[in-house]
């Protein structure tokens, strides 16, 4: 049986449907990321679970108990906020101890638990510092220890890394995952950073417009996006519009042999999804082979082991990741042939206009 259930949650703010029927089931000890652009409803969902807001319809059930109308201070949810949530008048130790004091735990137990938790997050040495004496990363570690101190039913993390710099972010997310696995605590994590979500979660739910577009393991989400939005949001994806013809998909005057197209009716408008790392690029040698699109390299973006090429031609707009060594022989301006894989590509039926993904500011607000 699921440990955490969000049952058909609805929440409107005026005319805006912030949540439009969210269904989530999460097993005990699992880590779920709610991923999506700002305004998709992910933070609203988290706040409903925390009890800071009430749903217009639907229920929140944890371990068989319906918590929908329970006050936030009676829910036993540990929450880590975006930033600046430590009590400025208390030291790190007192911050972590706060929830235990409220629960009336005796002094010796409190001290031991607080010390253990501060050690766990690597801040045993900074117990007596005030929040303003701690860096952003350290503050979030204390906030994590504070949330864990009360042995919460569910750990809720609301973009806890968004205010930190890139290096600390990577380090801390790995630590959050390590601690989560250690303690086996059921965790709901809200983020707009797909890399973050994919790297630490058991499950990822991509949200858009108050709904869950797709939920699955990180690998599923990456390799088998179910909607154009998910395809666009998770990782980088070539999206080639075309029409199903005999034996493939007609795109930019070329018939692409795509296995997935064989089951589709002729004349159907579809989107061919191809990951950039599956595109083979070589110099164009006149004749066009199977699944080959010809164009010029217009930009090269160095990404370390691979270099990303943007290839533009007549009706052709393809992104390809090639090994950096190979990219050296394909400088900007080179006429190249991009070969799409017949098997790896996915097809999505094109029903409506594709959603535009809004730009996410560096530090998103609720």
């Amino acid at each position, binding site marked *: 049986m699921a440990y955490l259930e969000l049952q058909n949650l609805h929440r409107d703010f005026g005319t805006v449907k912030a949540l439009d029927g969210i269904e989530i089931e999460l097993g005990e000890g699992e880590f779920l990321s709610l991923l999506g652009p700002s305004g998709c409803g992910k933070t609203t969902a988290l706040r409903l679970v925390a009890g800071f807001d009430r749903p217009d319809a639907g229920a929140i059930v944890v371990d068989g108990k319906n918590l929908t109308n329970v006050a936030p201070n009676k*829910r036993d949810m540990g929450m880590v906020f*975006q930033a600046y*949530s430590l*009590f400025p*008048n208390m030291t790190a130790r007192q911050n972590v101890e706060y929830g235990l004091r*409220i629960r009336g735990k005796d002094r010796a137990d409190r001290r031991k638990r607080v010390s253990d938790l501060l050690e766990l997050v690597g801040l045993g040495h900074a117990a007596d510092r005030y929040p303003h004496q701690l860096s952003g990363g350290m503050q979030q570690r204390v906030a994590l220890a504070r949330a864990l101190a009360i042995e919460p039913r569910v750990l*809720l993390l609301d973009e806890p890394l968004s205010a930190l710099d890139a290096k600390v972010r990577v380090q801390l997310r790995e630590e959050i995952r390590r601690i989560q696995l250690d303690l086996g605590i059921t965790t709901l994590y809200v983020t707009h950073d797909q890399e973050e979500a994919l790297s630490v979660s058991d499950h990822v739910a991509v949200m858009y417009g108050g709904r869950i577009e797709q939920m699955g393991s990180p690998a599923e989400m990456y390799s088998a996006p179910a909607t154009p939005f998910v395809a666009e949001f998770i990782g980088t994806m070539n999206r080639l519009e075309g029409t199903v013809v005999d034996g493939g998909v007609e795109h930019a005057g070329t018939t692409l042999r795509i296995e997935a197209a064989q089951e589709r009716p002729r004349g159907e408008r579809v989107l061919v999804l191809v990951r950039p790392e599956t595109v083979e690029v070589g110099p164009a040698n006149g004749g066009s082979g199977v699944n080959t699109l010809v164009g010029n390299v217009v930009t090269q973006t160095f990404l370390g082991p691979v270099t990303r090429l943007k290839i533009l031609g007549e009706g052709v707009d393809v992104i390809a990741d090639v090994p950096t060594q190979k990219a050296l022989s394909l400088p900007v301006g080179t006429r190249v042939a991009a070969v799409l894989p017949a098997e790896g590509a996915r097809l999505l039926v094109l029903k409506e206009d594709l959603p535009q993904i809004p730009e996410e500011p560096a530090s998103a607000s609720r």
Partner: protein
Amino acid sequence: MAPSAVFWLLLGGLYFFIPLLTTFLFSLKSNQTGKCCTAANYSWVIHNGEFWHTLKISFLLALETIVISLAIFVPTIYWVHLKVPKLRPVLAFLALIPFVVPPIVMVVGLLKFYQGSPNWFYAQPWGFLAGAYVILAFPYMYFSLDAGFRSIDVHTLTEASQSLGARWTTTLFKVILPNIRAAALAGSFLALAIVMGEYTIANLSAFHTFPIFIQYVNETQGFPAGALTLMSFGITWAAMGSLLLVGRKRGTRAAVVAGAR
């Protein structure tokens, strides 16, 4: 420092200190002979029962005003910041009214309004006068506290505290109050200064407070009045000084840093 800056600083200093100095010299003259120099006037003040009596009344009135103001305004402003931030301009407007309405108009209105109310309220400084002083202190309390609440992230701190199991009263006393302590102190000392020096309302509603005593001495005994003025000035400054000292302690800075998002 540039010569012109020194000049203006000196000029400002003189403007401030010359009256104090002359008052001090004046207060040293003998009440009988009019000659310098004697501390008799200070001794007269200290040994005057009325001085201590009215000082006590005004001081207790100030404390009462502060306690009532904090009890009303801290939860109100907290609630407004947390739940109905749209009401902030309304509160700010209300807070300006005591500035705009002259005290004489206010006291006449209040006297009329409360005519016939029970004696324990109407005839006692702890009732009627304290109520009037809470209104008078409202702007100072409001703007100090509002600044304090704006310097912390009320929402996040409250939610963090709630999620850890705290009721809102616990949150208010353990988390919010300590972080707006400096603002609450600032408002309190302003209220103290106002009440210790308020003359119009006390006079018109016929209560015998410290400023009334000063005025009485002023009219009847010139030289001791100088001593009394300086002493009340000293009391006010002692209050300001203690504000500075307490405000500098830890917690204050932390609140400001945490609010700088």
